[in-house]
């Protein structure tokens, strides 16, 4: 089933209004793939039925589910490797040294999906920085615009297919517990992590400033204007001396002059200088 052109334009507009994500014309396959499960869930014949339903009934809940279905992305543990290498060898040692007096460390995963990125970081902290368990206040915050993603991330429950994607087996058996057909992140991984619904282009709840912001593979979905707005807003939410990590194909170059690029071992970390 292929989504009708008129319906695609409606979905395109809806997703643009709610999330500022641009669905280009070549993404009709994505609409087909992502809305098919929703069609089954609400009991209509196909993808066009979903859109008909939402349009004819002006159903805000269904509209929200359409937006969520199209803004959820595949994710994996320790995704792309190099950012985690940079966190382990550059970012976290520098922050631990600089913040040894205040002993507060805050990390924000700004499009956390089902939580793999933030929990990967929690595992990295347990494995490589056990000293943070003694007298440090560590807050790991994940946000996503999708309510279901926030619920799932908070739950910390993953299928076999999900744990297969990038989770080393020795860490899986150490940091997760089998529950039926799923794996639950253990308390040591979850106790410093919390997940909140937040739309990067909407109103934000009150938040502290963060020492590390993971804004990976988010900006690519926005046009230049929105990209600049979001990036500048996120930078304002960073603590001076903090670090930002973007996706492999993303750069703040020309969008936010405050960030200083620090090329390191196959990736680039962006630093917000203290002064």
């Amino acid at each position, binding site marked *: 089933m292929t989504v009708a052109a008129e319906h695609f334009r409606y979905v395109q507009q809806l997703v643009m209004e709610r999330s500022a994500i641009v669905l280009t014309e070549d993404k009709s396959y994505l609409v087909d793939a992502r809305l098919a499960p929703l069609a089954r869930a609400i009991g209509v014949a196909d993808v066009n039925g979903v859109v008909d339903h939402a349009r004819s009934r002006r159903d805000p809940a269904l509209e929200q589910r359409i937006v969520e279905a199209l803004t959820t992305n595949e994710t*994996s543990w320790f995704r792309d490797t190099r950012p985690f290498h940079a966190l382990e060898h550059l970012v976290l040692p520098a922050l631990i040294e600089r913040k040894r007096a205040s002993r507060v460390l805050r990390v924000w995963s700004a499009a956390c999906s089902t939580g793999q990125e933030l929990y990967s970081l929690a595992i990295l902290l347990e494995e490589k920085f056990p000293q943070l368990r003694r007298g440090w206040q560590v807050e790991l915050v994940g946000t996503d615009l999708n309510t279901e993603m926030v619920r799932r991330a908070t739950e910390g429950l993953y299928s076999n297919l999900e744990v297969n994607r*990038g989770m080393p087996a020795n860490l899986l058996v150490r940091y997760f517990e089998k529950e039926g057909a799923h794996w639950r992140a253990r308390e040591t991984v979850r106790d410093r992590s919390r997940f909140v619904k937040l739309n990067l282009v909407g109103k934000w709840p009150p938040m502290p400033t963060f020492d590390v912001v993971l804004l990976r593979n988010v900006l690519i979905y926005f046009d230049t204007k929105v990209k600049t707005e979001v990036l500048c807003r996120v930078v304002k939410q960073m603590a001076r001396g903090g670090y930002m990590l973007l996706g492999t194909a993303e750069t703040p170059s020309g969008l936010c002059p405050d960030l200083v690029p620090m090329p390191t071992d196959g990736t680039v970390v962006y630093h917000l200088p203290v002064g």
Partner: protein
Amino acid sequence: MKALVVDDSRAMRSILSRILRKVGVEEINEAADGSQAVACLEAGASPDVALVDWNMPVMNGLELVNALRSRKEWRRIAIVMVTTESDQSQMVRALAAGAHEYLIKPFDEGSLIQKLAMLGFQAPSAATGPALAAQGGSH
């Protein structure tokens, strides 16, 4: 790079071999159970990595892992269990016996490619594997 694929399902051996070729494995030997795998090694095969199913006739995957770890010349072979056995206790047993990685069936192609990358096996142009993965298994 050379690989040994050990699975009693011909279809699964074929799927695994196809993925291995994608990541640049040049030489692949296939065996339908642990004893065939041992025979293959004794006949001179020298794989860098072995993909090993658990439940197989004659000699199962765990027995094969133990056999691979018992001979000095075979200890360098990286082992990835690829199995429907998804109990945590079974996974712990396999890692303790000397498996480096573990993939639960069914899996998607990318997951196996990631597991191979964790062990340092990847196509020259591919990204590297997970950061903490270099620690491998329990030994």
